[in-house]
């Protein structure tokens, strides 16, 4: 029994629809459920899932399509009622005033009447609407964090300049992570308060810095994201400089870590000058920069890896030893291919950087990296490859792999059929915004991979893991690592540690 319901001229964001479909699938008697906006991409996804019914084909892009397949009419009807109730708001708490009347807030003016001291707008609407909303936030005297991507660079520059003129900051577009005043925004981690401030043009890069600080029992004041394009010459590091100034003025911040992918020399000079101006000990981490460029400038230390930067901060600036940890199963040496299935873009970038510096492996990737070729078929890659599964091309019509592990799970299963797949590196990003149990969601697929390989008589693939997150994150760091340990998977406190261990397993076999 399959039923299609079209909700005309209605919008819900993709994450909400995905989570709704997931809840419906958990109802008794429901075999499959999909809930999507009826865009062309989503129609293709429904088709590949065998859910593109004749009724679904009639939907317009402004409509929501819900397709439910169940064992019986009753089960499907139950699912339909659940969806309708959800859209009617019956499954969530509504804001209400003192008389119990529902409050429907539609503007910054009404938002500010409710919270007069509101100081940050977290914007995650589709990109084409995001700039206009951010301008309205600035008009209302509110800083903006643009989680949305697909905002033009012209709009980005206009927004950032207007924010500065008004004594504010625009973080983003495409800013996925920040931790401000102890609160995680977007995808962020919980860490104790300390005296280290972070400015980063990379979401998972910030999360990795926080992970390594937490592993060394250190805390932060704030982690301010700027969006990946902030260091492009057209933008001129407007928000990075503003964020550095903010941490410079913040008396609780004693040390500053700045993190980005490599940038033009002129932009780096701007960053360097801003850090010098704060007078605070600082480290600049430029993931993937040439090692020979990693030297001190005007007292500011530079590193080409995140772990290297944190080590400098601890040992040279704080005067304490850097602690790293790993739990390995003393795997046998391997001769075959090494791959990385990453949900964190900067972690994939860092892996490419380390592998290209320390090995002569022929690598491919969907991440643009100097000297690395493009993976020819990203859905069925061969050889040595590092994939960022959060890249736009892989997230069309589905949530980011930090929320939805299904694509990576499929790839892990497919790896079972590749005889030469020797090492597979996985990052598990925990914290607010991420999947409730990222390791638990992947383990059944690793076990399936092992079973298939055993049946085929292939050598087992060595899975390596890095849990990116803190001991205070809601997914429970030690619970995640315990599951890895119980499944005989080696895990590492840093991404760099995992990659270097992978290299060592392969090098020993030469």
């Amino acid at each position, binding site marked *: 029994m399959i039923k299609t319901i079209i909700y005309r001229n209605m919008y819900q*964001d993709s994450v909400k629809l995905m*989570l709704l479909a997931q809840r419906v699938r958990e109802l008794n008697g429901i075999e499959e459920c999909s809930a999507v906006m009826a865009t062309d991409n989503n129609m293709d996804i429904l088709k590949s899932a065998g859910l593109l019914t004749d009724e679904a084909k009639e939907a317009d892009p402004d409509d929501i399509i819900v397709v439910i397949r169940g064992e019986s009419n009753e089960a499907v009807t139950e699912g339909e009622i659940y969806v309708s109730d959800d859209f009617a708001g019956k499954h969530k708490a509504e804001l209400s005033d003192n008389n119990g009347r529902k409050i429907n807030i539609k503007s910054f003016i009404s938002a500010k009447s409710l919270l007069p*001291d509101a100081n940050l707008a*977290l914007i995650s609407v589709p990109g084409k609407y995001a700039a206009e909303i951010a301008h309205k936030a600035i008009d209302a005297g509110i800083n903006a964090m643009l989680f949305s991507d697909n905002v033009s660079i012209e709009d980005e520059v206009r927004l950032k300049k207007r924010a500065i003129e008004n004594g504010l900051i625009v973080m983003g577009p495409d800013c996925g992570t920040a931790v*401000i*005043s102890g609160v*995680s*925004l977007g995808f962020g981690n919980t860490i104790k308060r300390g005296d280290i401030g972070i400015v980063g043009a990379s979401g998972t890069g910030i999360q990795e810095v926080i992970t390594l600080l937490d592993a060394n029992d250190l805390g932060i004041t704030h982690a301010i994201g700027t969006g990946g394009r902030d260091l492009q010459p057209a933008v001129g590091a407007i928000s990075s400089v503003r964020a550095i100034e903010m941490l410079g003025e913040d008396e609780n911040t004693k040390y500053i870590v700045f993190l980005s992918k490599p940038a033009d020399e002129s932009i780096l000079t701007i960053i360097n000058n801003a850090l010098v101006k704060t007078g605070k000990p600082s480290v600049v981490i430029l993931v993937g920069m040439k090692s020979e460029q990693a030297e001190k400038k005007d007292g500011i230390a530079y590193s080409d890896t995140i772990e290297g930067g944190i080590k400098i901060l601890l040992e040279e600036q704080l005067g304490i030893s850097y602690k790293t940890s790993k739990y390995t199963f003393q795997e046998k040496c391997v001769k075959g291919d090494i791959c990385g299935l990453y949900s964190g873009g900067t972690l994939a970038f860092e892996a490419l950087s380390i592998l290209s510096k320390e090995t002569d492996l022929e690598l491919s990737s969907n991440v643009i990296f100097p000297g690395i070729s493009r993976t020819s078929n990203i859905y069925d890659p061969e050889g040595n490859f590092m994939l960022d599964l959060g890249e736009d091309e892989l997230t069309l019509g589905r949530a980011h792999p930090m929320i939805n592990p299904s694509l990576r799970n499929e790839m892990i299963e497919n790896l079972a059929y590749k005889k030469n797949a020797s090492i597979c590196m996985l990052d598990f990003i925990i914290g607010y915004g991420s999947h409730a149990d990222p390791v638990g969601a992947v383990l059944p697929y690793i076990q399936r991979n092992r079973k298939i390989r055993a049946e085929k008589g292939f050598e087992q693939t060595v899975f390596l893991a890095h849990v990116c997150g803190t001991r205070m994150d809601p997914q429970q760091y030690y619970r995640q690592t315990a599951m890895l340990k119980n499944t005989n998977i080696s895990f590492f406190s840093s991404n760099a540690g995992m990659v270097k261990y992978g290299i060592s397993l392969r090098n020993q076999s030469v």
Partner: protein
Amino acid sequence: MNMLEEIVVVNIGLDFFREELEKQDCRVVNINWQPPQSIGDGALDFLKKLRDGDK
């Protein structure tokens, strides 16, 4: 108030983020946002004809 002293958020878009902020006891208010309704070509032609006085 400076957000580096206390952060108070207006969330627009993914309701999921509001839920995550509330779990952290962050003060947050959600703006109920919907994209502007698109208008079909037929209706647009009709409106243009009305504007141009050509019924």
